[in-house]
């Protein structure tokens, strides 16, 4: 097990390197830091100020290889970026000069407060709904359910948010239309609406996916065996099929766990929740490349963590898989 994991982690090293190269090319070669400097210092800034800004951040160095006389060849933006990312020195926001590590630490909590409950509710609801539809499979209810799921998937998340905000926050005054602060139990009032909407927006897809997974299990031979044993349809579904289906589902779900921390791009911005999603959208809007590329990089790392978790999870829940 340990050696397997080490091998997996080693395998990720070239991938991380690839990600770093891609982000570097996208953010440094194609977009010039000079434009960024203008953005930060304001349109009225003088060229010296810009040169100064670039110099202070090392953006005036050559891109890949330093060919200037007297300089070491690795004294370049690329090498410095690689080094910084590899050592988790996330640097400072181009826009505010704040420590990115600190921004991410602060943003993670609100994001998790939205995503974790949505994830739990969403998971439970979709699991039950999927089991229900599988239980009544091939009936009118099932067909209706599938169409409903697809319909829910076909609505962009913005429409959910626009409608939810309008209905609950504007028309009824039950919940705050906007805003967020951490303060014990009363934080909940800010979470209710985003959590509901986030759950709803993902529900259709999840139910449909879980339903497909369970349906596939339903056609397995062992289901026939169980029926022939005299096991009731409910027990067949909720014990035999559920346990088998859960293997696929849990591994899928585990892979998405690390992403909970990123939060929701659209939702957080609409509700003014200062999470990582909001941070990212804002960075995109203000061309804060330091933050955007860190998000890309961290997102990639999270994905790889997800893959690793999936492997571990498989080993944990599927008796058929044992690491050699």
């Amino acid at each position: 097990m340990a050696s397997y994991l080490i091998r997996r982690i080693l395998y990720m090293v070239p991938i991380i390197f690839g990600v770093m190269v891609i982000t570097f090319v996208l953010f440094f070669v194609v977009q010039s830091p000079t434009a960024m400097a203008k953005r930060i210092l304001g349109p009225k800034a003088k060229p010296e100020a810009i040169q100064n800004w670039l110099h202070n951040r090392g953006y005036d160095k050559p891109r890949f290889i330093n060919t200037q006389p007297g300089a070491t060849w690795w004294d370049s933006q690329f090498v410095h970026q690689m080094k910084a990312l590899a050592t988790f020195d996330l640097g400072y926001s181009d826009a505010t000069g704040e420590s990115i590590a600190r921004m991410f630490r602060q943003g993670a909590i609100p994001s998790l407060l939205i995503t974790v409950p949505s994830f739990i509710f969403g998971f439970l609801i979709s699991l039950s709904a999927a089991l229900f539809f599988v239980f009544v499979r091939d009936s009118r209810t099932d067909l209706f359910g599938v169409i409903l799921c697809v319909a829910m998937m076909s609505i962009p998340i913005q429409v959910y948010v626009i409608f939810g905000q309008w209905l609950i926050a504007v028309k009824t005054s039950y919940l705050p239309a906007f805003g967020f602060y951490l303060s014990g139990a009363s934080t909940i009032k800010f979470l209710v609406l985003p959590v509901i909407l986030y759950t709803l927006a993902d529900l259709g897809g999840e139910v449909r996916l879980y339903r497909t997974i369970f349906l596939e299990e339903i056609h397995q031979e062992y289901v026939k065996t169980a029926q022939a044993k005299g096991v009731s349809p409910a027990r067949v579904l909720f014990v035999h099929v559920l346990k088998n289906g859960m293997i696929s589902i849990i591994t899928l779900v585990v892979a998405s766990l690390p992403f909970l921390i990123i939060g929701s791009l659209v939702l957080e911005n609409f509700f003014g929740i200062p999470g990582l999603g909001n941070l990212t959208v804002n960075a995109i809007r203000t061309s804060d490349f330091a933050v955007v590329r860190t998000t890309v990089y961290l997102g990639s790392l999270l994905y790889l963590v997800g893959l690793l978790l999936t492997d571990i999870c498989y080993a944990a829940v599927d008796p058929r898989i044992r690491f050699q």
Partner: protein
Amino acid sequence: MSLLEVRNLRIQFVTEEGETQAVDDISFFVDSGETVALVGESGSGKSVTALSLSRLVPTPPARYQGGQILFEGKDVLQFSKRQLQDLRGGKIAYVFQEPSTSLNPVFRVRNQIAEAIHLHRRDVQDVRAEILNILDLVGIRDPIRAMEAYPHQLSGGMQQRVMIAMALACRPKLLVADEPTTALDVTIQAQILNLLRELRKKLGMAVLLITHNFAIVSNLADRVLVMYRGKIVEQGPTQEVLHHPKHPYTQALLACIPKIGSMERRLTTIDHEALARMS
């Protein structure tokens, strides 16, 4: 009264591609303690017949169009869900073709057998002892280890023994073995067939053996039913059908039998190896 009597059973399949008459007006019976073989090529409707005995054929796409399935004199087609669940496993038990997929991969062998016992034999006090007992009965040498194993940790022959153990766990009156050896190595096939024969003697249950293999039939069956395109085209005592087939289909089928002798020779040569793999 026969243990099982099927009268004029008709089953139709309705799919997007049209309707198929899977079982077309068949009648037969199985007496207590008797072994009956249902023979036919694939697609002849024999599996559907077997499954329909406890209404395991899913509806839709299947449709029971008519006839009766009398088990101990009661019509299975009129059973409630509750009665059906008692019938299945409790009275009629099944052994399927492919043991590797027919066992639930994520439950231990113990749990799978225990489930059957819990469902039909509430009176059993020591379930664990009973499981060991049954596993021993089907010839598993290290029942304690097998009990705690997951199906994939067992060899094909062992898996099929577990299937049989599971079927026998509730002392059924009728064991329906749906091509129980097709998926197995030739060497294991013989072992499983021997096991079935012994068990039938020991437990005195009736066996309905579904197969396309006449070699098995001649070894095991008292009577033979030959099925072709959903109809029973010939039936009678085994020796009579084998040696004096009346229906041309039966004659054609018999012509395809592999030489029994050669099979047995190979069987003896590979036996040790297979045993070694099993333990």
